[in-house]
C-alpha cells in the first residue's frame, strides 16, 4: 500500500492479486484500488492510466473518491483531474508511478526433497516447479547451501527448473521477474532439499594374498599397500598406546599420496594402531580398516639400560 500526494490529491494504492482466465490460460492480474481525498467543489474525477512506456491503458470517470482497475504486473503511471458541477475541468495532476510487482510464486508440492545422488555422476538432478502467473517474463532461482551461501543462481523462462547438485542440504528460492524488470518477493521452498551421497565407498583393501595379514616390522613388511582406486583418497589416523596399558592417543594423521603407507622410521617403541578409510567427493566415507603393530626397540637402544 502506498500513499502519494500530488497537487492536492492524495492517492492511496491497494494491490490485490487475482487470477483471471485469458486466452485459454490463467493469468495472474492484480486489482489496484486507487483512493484519494475529496476535493472541495469537485463533482467528479477523471483518471488516466498508461504504461511506463507510454501506452495508454484506460481512462475512468468516477464520482467517488475511489476506483478499482485490474492490471498485469508492470510499471504504470496514473494521473487525475477534477471536474466541477459547471463542467469546468481542473489541471491534471503529475503522473504518479504505480509499480505492480509480479505475484510471489507458489511451489508445487509434488517433487521429492530427499534424493540420493547418482553413482555415475555423484550428483543428483533436482527438479523444482512452481505456479507461474503468466505475466512474468522469467524466474530467478537461487540455491543456498547449509552454510547459507548462495552457490548457484540461474534463470529460467518456464516455471520449473532442473539443477544438478552434489550431496548436501539446500534451500531453494525463486523470484519472478516481469518484462520490465520488476521483481516479486522471494518465495522460499518450505522444506530443505537433502541429497544423500550416492553410496558408501568400499573400505580400502590391503594388497596381499587372501588370508594373509600384512605384518609390519624390521624383519617383515616395511609398509602396507592398498589396492588403488582412481578418484578416491585413503585417509589414515595413527594412534599409539603404551604396552601393558589401554590408552590410545592420536600421533599422526594425513592423506595417503599413493597406495602405500609406511610408518615413520623414527617411531618410538610401543603399540600402534593405524586406521584407514577412503574418501571421495559425493560419496559417503568408507568403513575403516585398522591395523595394529608393535615397534620394538633396537638392540642398541637396550644395550645399556643404565
Amino acid at each position, binding site marked *: 500500500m502506498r500513499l502519494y500526494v500530488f497537487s492536492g490529491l492524495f492517492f492511496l494504492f491497494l494491490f490485490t492479486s487475482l487470477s483471471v482466465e485469458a486466452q485459454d490460460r490463467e493469468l495472474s492480474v492484480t486489482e489496484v484500488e486507487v483512493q484519494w481525498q475529496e476535493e472541495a467543489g469537485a463533482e467528479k474525477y477523471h483518471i488516466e492510466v498508461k504504461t511506463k512506456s507510454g501506452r495508454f491503458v484506460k481512462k475512468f470517470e468516477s464520482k467517488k473518491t475511489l476506483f478499482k482497475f485490474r492490471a498485469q504486473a508492470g510499471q504504470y503511471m496514473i494521473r487525475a483531474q477534477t471536474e466541477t458541477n459547471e463542467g469546468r475541468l481542473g489541471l491534471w495532476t503529475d503522473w504518479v508511478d504505480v509499480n505492480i510487482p509480479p505475484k510471489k510464486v507458489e511451489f508445487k508440492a509434488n517433487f521429492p526433497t530427499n534424493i540420493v545422488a547418482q553413482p555415475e555422476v555423484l550428483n543428483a538432478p533436482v527438479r523444482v516447479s512452481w505456479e507461474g502467473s503468466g505475466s512474468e517474463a522469467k524466474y530467478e532461482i537461487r540455491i543456498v547451501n547449509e552454510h547459507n551461501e548462495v552457490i548457484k543462481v540461474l534463470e529460467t523462462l518456464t516455471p520449473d527448473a532442473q539443477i544438478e547438485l552434489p550431496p548436501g542440504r539446500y534451500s531453494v528460492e525463486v523470484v519472478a521477474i516481469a518484462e520490465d524488470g520488476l521483481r516479486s518477493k522471494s518465495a522460499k521452498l518450505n522444506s530443505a532439499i537433502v541429497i544423500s551421497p550416492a553410496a558408501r565407498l568400499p573400505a580400502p583393501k590391503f594388497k596381499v594374498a587372501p588370508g594373509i595379514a600384512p605384518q609390519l616390522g624390521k624383519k617383515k613388511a616395511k609398509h602396507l599397500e592398498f589396492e588403488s582406486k582412481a578418484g578416491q583418497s585413503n585417509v589414515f589416523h595413527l594412534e599409539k598406546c603404551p604396552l601393558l596399558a589401554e590408552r590410545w592417543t592420536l600421533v599422526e594423521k594425513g592423506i595417503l599420496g599413493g597406495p602405500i603407507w609406511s610408518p615413520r622410521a623414527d617411531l618410538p617403541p610401543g603399540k600402534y594402531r593405524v586406521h584407514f578409510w577412503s574418501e571421495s567427493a559425493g560419496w559417503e566415507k568408507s568403513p575403516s580398516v585398522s591395523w595394529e603393530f608393535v615397534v620394538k626397540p633396537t638392540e642398541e637402544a637396550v644395550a645399556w*639400560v643404565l
Partner: protein
Amino acid sequence: MALLEDLRTHSGRVIGIFFFGVLWVGPTNFSQARVDEGNCGSVEEFKRTFEFLTKEESLILNEAEAIREALLVSAGCDNASLRFQKIYNLLKKSGVDLRQSFLVALKFVSKDDQMVENFVEIFKKIYLENYLDMDFVTALKFSLALSDRYEGNSETLREDFTKIVKFCSNEKEMALNVNTCGQVALELTRYSKYYPDGFFTAFQKVYHFLRTNKRMGIGVAEALRITTRVVSKGPKAPENFIQTIEYALINSRLKLNPRQALGLGLAVSDQSQKLRVVE
C-alpha cells in the same frame, strides 16, 4: 594375565602403604615374618632411587610420592636401586606404560643381581626382532619365569631356551608357532640343572633319532613328548634311550617290533637317574 593380576595385587599393596610426614609405617608385607639376611646400606639405595624418580619427569611424582616409592625400592637392600633402574629402563625403552614398568621393576628390588641380569638378557633374546621376536606379553611372561628359574649357569639356560624355540619354530624341524615353542622350551628348562653344558644337543639328537626312524612312524607331537621325557631323566638318558632301541632292533634274539623297541628304550632311559629310596 596372571602377570597382570600379580601386578594389580602388588599395586594394591603399594596403595596400602601409609605415609604421614616423617612417620613411616612400612609395606604390609613388613609385618610378615622376616629372616635377617644381613645389613643394608639403605640410605644409598633411598638416595639413588629418590633422585632417579624425581629426575624421571614422565612418571609425574610429587615429593611425597617419590619418597614413598623410593622407600619401597630401598627396602630391597644393597643394589636394590640399580636393580630397579635396570628393569625400569629396559621396559621404558621398550615402550611399556611407565606405571607398569615401575611395578614390574619393583618385583626385582628384593631379588639378587644375577636374577636381574638374567631377566634383562632373557628378555632381549626373546623380545627383540633380531632374536625370537615374541610378542611383548609372552616375552615378559617367559622372561619372568626363566629369570626366576635359573639354577647354575644362567647363560646356559638362556642358550637352551633360545635354541629350543628356534629349533621348534623352524619350518624344517617342528614348524610350531613361536609362542607354543616358548612354552615347550620353558617346560624343558626345568631340566637344565641336570645339563651343565646345556641340554639342547641331547634334545636335538633324541628328536632327530625318533623322527628319522621311519619304521617307528612317530609324528611331531609324539616325538616331542617322548624327547621331553627322555631329557627329563638326566644327561645319560638320551644315550641310554637311543642305544636301547638300536640294540633291540638289531638283536635278532629280542624279536621286537619298532613300537615295542621304543617302549623298551623309554623303560631303560627312565632308569638313567639313580634314585635314593627315602625310608
